[in-house]
């Protein structure tokens, strides 16, 4: 009696043989330090999240700065307009002083 494998084509034999070996092949395992690498990567991910919180603080600080600047600017403009008014009156006075040939 002929062996069963001789009834099959080369390809069939090869595949069944290979699948049989595949069944026996132990599962590959990751290296022991891989978990540590993953955790350190996640640590970096977390570290990237922290600046996002800082960004919010920076944005808040920037808003406060802008508000202070706006206040300072408006104060400055107010005082500048008041000064202009003072100059106007004082220049009037000066001009009146120069009317020598009346």
């Amino acid at each position, binding site marked *: 009696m002929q062996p069963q*494998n001789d009834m099959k084509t080369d390809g069939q034999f090869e595949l069944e043989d290979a699948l049989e070996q595949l069944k026996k092949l132990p599962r590959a395992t990751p290296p022991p330090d891989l978990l540590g690498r993953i955790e350190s990567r996640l640590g970096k991910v977390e570290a990237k999240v922290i600046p996002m919180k800082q960004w919010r603080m920076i944005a808040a600080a920037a808003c406060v700065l802008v508000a202070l600047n706006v206040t300072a600017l408006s104060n400055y403009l107010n005082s500048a307009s008041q000064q202009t008014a003072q100059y106007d009156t004082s220049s009037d006075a000066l001009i009146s002083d120069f009317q020598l040939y009346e």
Partner: protein
Amino acid sequence: MPEPNNRELLQDIANGNALALRTLYGRISGRVYNTALSYVQNEADAEEITQDVFTKIWRSAGSFKAESQVTTWVYRITVNTSLTALKKRERRGLFSALSAQEKEVPDFHHPNAVMEDRETSRALFSAIYRLPDRQKTAFVLSYVEELPRQQVAEVMNLSLKAIESLLMRAKKGLRNGLTTDYPNRGNATAK
């Protein structure tokens, strides 16, 4: 105290529990790594994919829908990450070897193949590498990972019938691949 199941672990991971991630890693990292290795056939790349998969699990544990098993969800992430890595490799290959007509197949020896089976294992993995993506996924999940067909269908979001058809075509492709690589080996071993 009973061990938490995978779903509970995933919930804990979603709440930022790093210990839960460690426990889940202990349970499923072998599956993730082995699947990735079957796709990319390079240990360094498989390690990179495993890192990517667990980073994705950490980030998106909250989006897991309890409709499927955790392992099904993880396999889906692993398959997608592995296929993306292969696409990147192909793109890199295109730049480095514009004249190459055929897919460059890595010379891969499975780390656990025993010496006398190394050539058969190398030929099989090389034939797997050349399969189209969907056939490759169906074959790797069914024969390398030995998942039940129903779970393979869930991972791939296809019907059972579609999986059977993909496996038939995959086996045909593998037969052709093995015969081309080793035209005389079947005869030599049979006798």
